[in-house]
């Protein structure tokens, strides 16, 4: 384990890259998820179709392939985003499809009477979503969103294929130099757990905070 403790600064720089990438992509995924979920439950058929198309294409394509297509494909049409920004957009957009489906299931869990009551007192569709349906939907989807967050955290390691310098890449570089794969990747696993276990606990706390007494 000496190789791990001797290179804590290498792990730290990779760790903070992973933290930044995780938080930024998660924010993007929430925004994308809300927009797409709204489209999927919208009364307008074209919006529903577009939302369905987004979810099914993005969710059913490997993240690795999407990263490649975005990073190397868009430069061919003159759009070159940096490695980090490409990662945030692709990882965020990909998990946004999952967030959208989680939110949609949450909306389904809000009883129909709530939406009907909201509309009957004169709220528009978007108002009824914003003030009545989504706030209740969010409460029921905290656990699945927590799952998506943890999956997203681990999936950020795929940024190494477009030369991102995250935690996995830091471990990989150390391993190239010292050829001690087991302690080095064990160190990386611990670092990921330092990130994911508290976030799991945080989601549990949020879940209890917003729980509806039924």
């Amino acid at each position: 384990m000496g190789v791990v403790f001797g290179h804590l600064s290498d792990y730290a720089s990779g760790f903070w890259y992973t933290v930044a990438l995780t938080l930024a992509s998660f924010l993007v995924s929430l925004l994308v998820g809300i927009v797409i979920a709204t489209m999927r439950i919208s009364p307008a058929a074209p919006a529903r179709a577009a939302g369905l198309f987004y979810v099914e294409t993005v969710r059913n394509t490997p993240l690795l392939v999407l990263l490649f297509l975005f990073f190397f494909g868009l430069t061919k049409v003159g759009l070159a985003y940096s490695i980090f920004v490409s990662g945030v957009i692709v990882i965020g957009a990909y998990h946004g499809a999952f967030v959208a489906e989680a939110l949609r299931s949450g909306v389904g869990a809000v009883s129909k009477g709530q939406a009907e009551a909201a509309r009957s007192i004169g709220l528009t569709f978007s108002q009824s979503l914003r003030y009545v349906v989504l706030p209740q939907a969010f409460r029921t989807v905290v656990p699945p969103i927590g799952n998506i967050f943890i999956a997203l955290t681990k999936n950020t390691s795929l940024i190494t294929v477009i030369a991102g310098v995250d935690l996995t890449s830091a471990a990989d570089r150390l391993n190239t130099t010292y050829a001690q794969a087991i302690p080095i990747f064990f160190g990386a696993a611990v670092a990921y757990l330092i990130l994911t276990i508290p976030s799991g606990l945080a989601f549990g706390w949020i879940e209890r905070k917003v729980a509806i007494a039924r």
Partner: protein
Amino acid sequence: MFRRRLSVLVATAALAMGTAACGGGTSSSGGGLAASAKPAGYAMTQATNIPASPTLDAIKSRGKIVIGTKFDQPLFGLKNPVTGNIDGFDAELSRLLAKRVLGDDKKIDFVETVSKNREDFIEQGKVDAVIATYTINDARKQRVGFAGPYYLAGQDIMVKKDNTTIKSVTDLNGKKVSSVQGSTSEQNIKSKAPQAQVLLFDTYTTAGEALRDGRVDAESTDNVILLGLVDKNPDAFKLVGAPFTQEPYGIGLKKADTVFRNFVNDTLAEAEKNGDWQKAYAATAGKVDPKPPTPPAIDRY
């Protein structure tokens, strides 16, 4: 109705993918699949007296020499999918050796060897010799003998075809350079050009793609690999031709058979003297190497 529509959709998609694949195939075959360039006539002739040695005796009684080489290394040992021939510098040296022993460069069986099995194949006598971008080092010398070196490989730099500013490794200071994960290429760059920013991709081709897109100024790894990339993309890339590490390639053979090792060394010396070595290089790696090397001194240890 839905089912029929679906099948049409699938067929269309398959067709589209098929065409795409074909398009990709033709555009990337810069190496020339059908036209495997043959060097114009070698001067090498059969040796007048072939000494007795376990390997040479086996070759003579078999009437064929068995050479282990790579089947997937462009310009050195690459199996041509159209003709089935093995093309490349290593394959040409094998032909010269066959001509020296048996007087006929067609009396060869090529066996694919990969990095992991080369020593085993030699020790078990599955091959008479291994000519397969095989770096001579002390660890390997414990198990096998090496004739040569016949070529000095080394880490080199590949740039876009129109680049004129990067001429050596020190020019990489302050530049972005791509390479691959899990290789020592990064450390070699950092030790010679500490101010270079190295981006590590997962394959040589994606590292090359980053160069094509202008995300990096250069790609750096073993020149043999870079030559292969240049060969496939002759209009996009070029090799700088300023290697900054040294990896001597040798011909691996049975450790105990010093008579055969001397014979192979004599063959190499002859090929280097009569111009066959240069012909073989010019017809293979020399097609894309801007600076054809001179053969390294043979190490008769």
